[in-house]
């Protein structure tokens, strides 16, 4: 089978996405679930860059600019998520997802 570089990049990003998915689904530690979500976001960014790198019109900068916005949103999401983790820890003294059954302050 002949795999082009673009297909290799896409396989790379889908493998990274599935590693993040498996981590987010299988672990019960809130921080690890958040890291799995971050990996999935990174995999999506890899797709944008791969398609931009091999696009027929290299002058278009849309892929790069979209990735910059996605990184900014992912950073905001990480900050809010870790603040929530700390709030949950303060409330119930552990960060297992199964124990976080109520949001009442």
């Amino acid at each position, binding site marked *: 089978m002949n795999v082009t*570089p*673009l*297909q*290799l990049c*896409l*396989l*790379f990003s*889908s493998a*990274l*996405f*599935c*590693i993040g*998915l*498996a981590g987010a*689904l*299988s*672990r*019960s530690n809130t*921080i*690890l679930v*958040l*890291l*799995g979500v*971050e*990996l999935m976001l*990174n995999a999506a*960014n*890899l797709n944008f*860059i*791969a398609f*931009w*790198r*091999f*696009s*027929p019109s*290299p002058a278009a*900068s849309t892929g*790069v*600019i979209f*990735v*910059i*916005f996605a*990184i*900014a*949103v*992912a*950073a*905001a999401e*990480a*900050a*809010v998520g*870790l*603040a*929530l983790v*700390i*709030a949950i*820890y*303060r409330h119930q003294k552990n*960060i297992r997802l199964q124990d976080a059954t109520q949001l009442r*302050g």
Partner: protein
Amino acid sequence: MIPLILIVLVTLATAVVAMSRRNLIHSVLLLIGTWAGIAAFYLWAGAEFVAFAQMLIYVGAVSMVVLFAVLLTRRSREDATLIPESLGRAFSAFIVAGLAFGLVAFAVLSTQLPARKGGASTISVQQIGTGLMGSHAAALLVIGLILTVALLGAVVIAATEPRESEEDAP
């Protein structure tokens, strides 16, 4: 093609080991390697600015925030090791992830993608700047608003002490 394969192997290996480690701090330190590998991929693809942004934001900032969260949410020195998950949960997660990967890989390999031949295209920082300030200025403003609101909200959520007693009104 050889550098790309090396980057892919290193990144995927660190990601797999990070997601399967029992020690949370080891996981975060290995994920720094994954993020650095992704930055190397951006460099390979010719998107230098995105590579530097990835290094600054993920390798520099997000990893430190995650490490601080790990250290703030453990009770003793040995508490960073996790209790093992239930086997059924891990098994079903692997089934779902494997099915998703199989589906996407089949779709990728069976599609004829139009690809440009030739070397890496580069984009200058000036082009990115004019793009951000020109046609994407509204999105840039919205991103600034989102970051402000998210960081203020994070501070409020993390800094608020829970109320000690709560009278249940009938």
